[in-house]
Structures are given as C-alpha cells and as structure tokens.
C-alpha cells in the first residue's frame, strides 16, 4: 500500500549571515494512512524544520527533494493549491499553546477559520467548532466559544489549538512538541486525547518530540533524527528493546527514570556517544 505521506531526500537550506546553512540533509519518512509516527531527536536535529518543510511554512527556506501526499508532490505545488493542503489535508499543532493562539481574537473565531476560509457558513462552522471543543473535553464549550485565549488554562488552550488543527478534518496531523509546555498530568491527558481523536477519524499523526518517554504509549513507529537526517527507524517496541544506533541508545539512556539513583548525574546523549565508536556519516556539530 502506498503511504499517505512520502518524504524522500528532503533538504532544507536557510540563508544565514555567512551564506546558506543546510538544516535538513536528506530526510526520508513514510506515514501510512491512520499510522502514528514519532519523529524523535534533540533540539536542533531538524525535526521541527521537517514538519514546517512539509507544509512549506518557511518563506525563506530553500527546499529540495520530494514530499508527496496522496500522490501529489507538495514541493512543486503552486502556492494557491498548497493553501488547500494546509489545514484541510494536514493540520499543525505547536508546542506553546499560549503563543499558538492569537491573543486578541476569540478562540471561536480562530477555530472557525479553517472552515470559514473554505466557504462554510458561519453558523455551521460555529456549531462544528462547539461540537469539536466538547469532544476535546472543554466543558461548557458553547458559552466559552467567544472567550479569549488568556481566559483558558494551558491544557485547555492546547485543546483549542488541536481543535483549530483538526476541525477541517485533515488526513494528517503534525504535532510539534504538543505537550512540552504542559505539566505532566495535562501532558498525559492531551496525548490520550490526540490518540483517541486519531483513531476515531483514522487520521495519521506525526508526533515530533525530544521526549522518548511519551512516545511508547502513543506511536506505532519511531524515526530518530540527528543533524538533519534520520539515523534509525523502526517499530516502537523494536527501538526500545534493541536500539541499533548509538545515538538512539543515548537518547534512551538520557530519559530520567523514577528508579534512578538520585545522586547519579543524569546521562546525556554525549555520554552514550562517547562510549561508542563514532558512526560513519555522523556529521559535524549542529550548525544552528
């Protein structure tokens, strides 16, 4: 079966003070319909840029390679047609729910946008928005629809952000560190919610995170990225049980565990890398 999203040799360069800087150096990634994939790596590994490149959100990025969604090459698509992809075919959720919401607009207005710009009538959009918010566990959604972001807690805000991302029923949801800014209890709630939503709508999810701890219960497959390229990928269980790449081992070892000896220094990825022979192809230090 052909995957829903197919990323082949994706490259991204950005203009820097001393000429272009290459952030993505050939990313390959497949996501099947209804599949949940986690893209894991340290900050600076290029995982967020991958997400943004798929949606072509960086105006000054120089993109190369191929990104196909259902057979359509997104990188060569005219901007106008690309707009029909954004929001309607691929939804996006960011890390910081406060920064993700426009402070001077009501959450209702923001939730209705993906529908309104596609010609759905206000009344209909409003009804669907309220239904969705209720489904996402926002109590009293009808009354709160015209409130402003600052009137919500962090967890509730992230539900609003998710509502904006999925209201137009995209086939793929890209969630870029959706829980990092939330406290642990809320993190779990939001992840559960995302998973349920994905299953109900058989929506694919690309979860981008640096936190391997949250991946296990969520994703089917894991892709580990470093320095702008994937270094390892596989089923979640396989990766956890038997990480092949030293970097992955490092990432796994650096997840703090409740049964760790508290006096011991937390392990860093570098500790793990130092212990191994450098892998061929591992690139020079991050350029950001």
């Amino acid at each position, binding site marked *: 079966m052909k995957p829903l999203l197919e990323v082949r040799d994706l490259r991204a360069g950005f203009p820097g003070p001393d000429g272009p800087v290459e952030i993505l150096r050939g990313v390959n990634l497949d996501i099947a319909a209804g599949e949940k994939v986690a893209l894991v790596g340290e900050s600076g590994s290029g995982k967020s840029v991958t997400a943004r490149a798929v949606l072509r959100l960086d105006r000054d990025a120089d993109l190369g390679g191929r990104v196909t969604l259902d057979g359509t090459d997104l990188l060569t698509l005219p901007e106008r047609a690309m707009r029909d992809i*954004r929001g309607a075919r691929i939804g996006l959720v*960011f890390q910081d729910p406060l*920064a993700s919401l426009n*402070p001077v*607009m009501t959450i209702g207005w923001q939730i209705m*946008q993906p529908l309104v710009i596609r010609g759905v009538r206000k009344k209909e959009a409003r009804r669907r928005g309220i239904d969705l918010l209720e489904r996402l566990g926002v109590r009293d959604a009808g009354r709160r629809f015209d409130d402003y972001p600052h009137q919500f807690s962090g967890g509730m805000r992230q539900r609003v*952000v998710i509502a904006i991302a999925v209201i137009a029923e995209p086939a793929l949801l890209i969630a870029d560190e959706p829980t990092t800014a939330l406290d642990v209890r809320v993190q779990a709630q939001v992840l559960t919610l995302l998973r349920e939503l994905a299953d109900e709508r058989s929506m694919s999810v690309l979860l981008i995170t640096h936190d391997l701890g949250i991946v296990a219960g969520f994703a089917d497959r894991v892709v580990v990225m470093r320095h702008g390229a994937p270094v390892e990928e596989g089923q979640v269980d396989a990766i956890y049980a038997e990480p092949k790449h030293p970097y992955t081992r490092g990432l796994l070892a650096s997840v703090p565990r409740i049964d760790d000896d508290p006096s011991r220094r937390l392990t860093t990825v570098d500790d793990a890398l130092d212990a191994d022979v450098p892998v061929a192809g591992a690139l020079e230090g991050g350029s950001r």
Partner: protein
Amino acid sequence: MTRFLLRRLITSVVVLFGLGVVTFLMSQVLPGDPARAAAGRNATAEQVAAVSARLGLDQPIWEQFPRYLGNLLQGDLGTSVFTQRPVLDDIAEALPSSIELVLAAMLINVVIAVPLGVYAAYRRGRATDVAARLIVLFGAGVPVFWLGLMLQLVFADRLGMLPLTGQLGFGREVPELTGMTSLDALLSGDMAAFGDAVAHLLLPAVTLAAAFIAVVARTVRSSMISVLDSDYITLARATGASERRVVIRHGLRNALVPVSTILGMQLGWMLGSTVLVESVFGRRGIGAYAVNAVLQNDLYAVIGSVLVIGVVFVLANIVVDLVQLWLNPRLRQPARARPAAVTAGEPLEKGAMEGAAL
C-alpha cells in the same frame, strides 16, 4: 478593566489640576490687567477697582486660586479683551474647525501609514530598514509651517490644483451646524460646497499629517514584524489562510495595539501644530486664535486656549485607553489576573516625538 480605567482617570485628573496651576501662574505673570480687561477699555479707575474687587483680584493668590479653579470648572474662562466676548464662546466657535483639520490629518496619516508599515513589514530586509529610518529622521526635521508654504507654492500657486488659503471658495457659504465646514456642507446636502471645503482642507491636512506618517509607518512596521514572527501567525498560515488574510485579519489588530498609543499622542500634537498650520493656510481655529491672542496680549484668551488644548489632549488619551481596551482583550480582565508582562496600558514615553509635531 475598571482598575485600568480608574488609574488612567486619576492620572488625567492630576494632569488637569496641574494644568489649572500652570495656567493660573501664567495669569499672575502675564502682562495685561485682567480687571481692566473685564471692565472694558473705557472704564474709569474706580470702575476697574470695583471690577477687581468683584473678581477678587485684590486678594492674595491663595484665595484667588480656588476661585480660579472654581470658575474653570464652571466653564468660565474670562472675557477676551480683543473680541469682548467670553473666551469659552470664542473657543467653542474656533475649535470645531481645528478638530476638522486634525481629524482630516489623522485620517490621511492612518490611511497612508498603516498600509505602508504593513507592506514594509511584509517585505522586510535591510533595504526597508534603512529606508524606514531615513524617512522618519527626515520627516522629523521638516518645519511644518515651511512645508505648508512649500505645498502652497507648488500645488496652489504653480500648479493651481488646490486653493491657496481659507476654508471655502469666494462667495460660497454653508449653514453653521457643527462648525466643521466640510461636515456642514455635507449635512446641508450641498455637494459642490463639500467638494470645495475638502479641497481647502487637503493641503493643510497633508501638511499637518506629513511629519507623523513616517513615525506611524515605522511603528506599524516594527510591531507587525514581531507579530509576523509569532507562532499564531505561522499557525494561521497552517490553516490554509491566504497571505493577505494572515497579515490583515490575523496580524493587523495585534500590530495596532502599540500604534494606537502613538496615534493618541499624535492627536494632541497635531492640535498643538494647528498653531503653525492654521496661520499659514488662513483657517480659523484654536491655533490661529491662540496666536492672535498672544500677539494681542489677550490674557484670558491665551490661558483659555492653552487650557482647552490641554483638556483635548487629556481627552484624546482617554479615548486611546478605550481603543486599547477594544483592541486588546487582555486588558479587560481584572488586573491581578493579568500576566505581568502585559503592559499595553503603559503609555510610551510621553512627549515623545514632540519634534515631529512642528
């Protein structure tokens, strides 16, 4: 929200009180005997003394001051020596014309500066950065009265496109309804007079607006740039909204919050600049009235003008506060719940860009 408004109102009251003190001190120093002024030119010494006693002018200042404030509160600004009419009546007659001019200038200012600033933000880069800096620094260095004369020279005298001075063409008249000539013409349905009034309004309004446009455009630009860099704008793009919609519907309102503060202050400075512009264009208004009053040594008229302009300035600031409440919902919540970082209510350095006003 109430606390925000309350704090601003208290500040306004303090400023107004201070204005009363300053103008009172002026009245003590200014040349010209107010008692003689009130009694009339041909009054005898006894009559002047009688008036002086009636007005309490022979009493020590600590007794005069409360009386002075009391009179101000009742709208009694004294009588003009020159027109022999209550100063308040004179000003009430002159002010609408100035407000017409200032509002027209503000309209031009906003209509040009906001789109310009938005565009410059969208096309940011070193070139627009340099251009914005130069235009602002140039704009702040042009004497407004001279600019008015130059525009007259080019557009009225050489090109003959627009009238040189005045508010209406020769022989034209509109009924006095609001005191704003163009509005009066419109209300009375006289479209020809309306066109004529607008033509007369155009050059002075452009003159008044010129110095401010660059500053507003630059403010819009820098605040728009930081808005466009924010996550919610990226997410707006990710919903599939067009660039136009992203910038205007999602971004503009945020970008305008700091701009509204500047515009409010500019409203006050524009009113101050009418002193220079109205005399160049031979328009009636509070600026021209104030200048005449000074040249005529017309004590109460000078003080009255200063006072009224000050009050309008304070009122403009209150309007700005209300506009900010509308633009920025975060100010509407109770103060204690507001994140410390939100200080949109704080005025920028007051008196800022004073030079641009001249």
